[in-house]
């Protein structure tokens, strides 16, 4: 059950190190229903690591992630249920059709009617006609939509996206934005990391800057991108 203030995911003092390298240092964040938190930063800032920790794929070296108030742990798989994750890889199996891939995800999340849920998810991303195709037959843009369908099939409350606009042409990026916006209006929370701010700017309700593993800024998105960019560059180059 969502907590009273609509918060879905919270990170408290998150740290992640690889050996002596501190990739994430003391990150605090929160995502609520209908939020679109766009996290920008240069390459190597720790964005992918942050997402993997938030998704429960990697364990933080210190601090914790809470989903709906419960601490995320590998030993408590149920805590991962409200989360969906769109990686920069498609997470699909080449030898299964799109429908089978998405139905597999539905089964893994214990959905009652996996095939129906899969078709519904594919319809919502306008891939229903290609349900019987294999991933290797699809372009990058279509593969991305399929990956989103897979991530959404179990009706998560929060979607984490890792550089979703990479490799997409303008129409494909626009389609993705529309799809995400539509879901957001229905209450889905989004946390999106990117280093292409232009793609995600219009989608955002809040913007944050991650650089060198540090959370440098977080604020509501106000004003156009052109005003934000100089501030962003100043922060990152400091």
């Amino acid at each position: 059950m969502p907590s009273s203030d609509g918060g879905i995911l919270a990170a408290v003092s998150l740290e992640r190190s690889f050996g002596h390298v501190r990739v994430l240092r003391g990150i605090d964040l929160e995502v609520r229903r209908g939020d679109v938190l766009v996290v920008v930063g240069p390459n190597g800032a720790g964005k992918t690591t942050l997402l993997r920790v938030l998704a429960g794929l990697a364990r933080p070296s210190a601090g914790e992630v809470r989903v709906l108030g419960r601490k995320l742990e590998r030993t408590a798989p149920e805590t991962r249920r409200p989360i969906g994750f769109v990686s920069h890889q498609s997470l699909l199996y080449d030898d299964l059709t799109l429908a089978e891939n998405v139905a597999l995800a539905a089964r893994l999340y214990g959905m009652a009617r996996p095939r129906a849920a899969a078709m519904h998810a594919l319809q919502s991303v306008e891939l229903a006609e290609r349900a019987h195709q294999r991933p290797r037959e699809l372009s990058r843009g279509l593969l991305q939509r399929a990956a989103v369908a897979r991530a959404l099939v179990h009706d998560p409350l929060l979607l984490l996206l890792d550089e979703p606009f990479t490799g997409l042409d303008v129409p494909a990026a626009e389609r993705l934005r529309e799809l995400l916006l539509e879901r957001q209006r229905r209450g889905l929370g989004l946390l999106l990391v990117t280093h292409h701010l232009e793609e995600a700017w219009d989608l955002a309700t809040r913007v944050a800057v991650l650089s060198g593993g540090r959370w440098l800024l977080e604020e509501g998105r106000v004003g156009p991108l052109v005003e934000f960019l100089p501030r962003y560059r100043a922060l990152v180059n400091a």
Partner: protein
Amino acid sequence: MPEWIRLALVIAAKDVRAELRSKTALLSATVFASLVLVIFNFARDPTALSATDLAPSALWVTFAFAAMVAMNRSFTVEREHGALDGLLLAPVPSSALFAGKLLANLAFVAAVEAVALPLFVLFFNVDLSRALPGIIGTAALATIGFVAVGTIFGAMAVRTRFAELMLPVLLLPFMVPPLIGAVQVTSRLLAARPLSEMMGWLRLLAVYDVVFVTLAALAFAFVVEE
């Protein structure tokens, strides 16, 4: 049924379906098995070494290497598009993931063994009429043990650069006790020896299975987490 069993079956079914479509592991393992049997057969001097002396070793060496080919594939397929993350994201406990992978691997290895056995009868001209149930039982007993170890080592090997080499290097020492046991029992079965002569080895195989399936299941969590 308990949730983790259902999840294990979902994962195993996925692996089997994917493999039936692509057939790479099954084909390569079967071809490999046939080649090994042929070589064994041609390489021996029929006047010096009778078929029944060589047969059990030939059979089990074939099974062992073909199994490794099959097991390697199981985790390679997870690496392709990061699909393993998909399994780890879902609320699937690592015991279910292990059980699913183990079942799928057992299915693959059993399929290869089922093809290799008739070829074995063909090339070595052995009479399996009385020994067949015993051989099938022994095969099951021995296979479970080293496939469990192969499943967890496969999960590790796939994260390294030379995965195809790493799995055999890690796995071979672990295959020796079950292989020795299997060869000993098989040769006694073929010679129609009484059961009492095999009990020691059969017990070895059974205890090995219990210990290593349990250990692999418990250790699997440490291998897949980040």
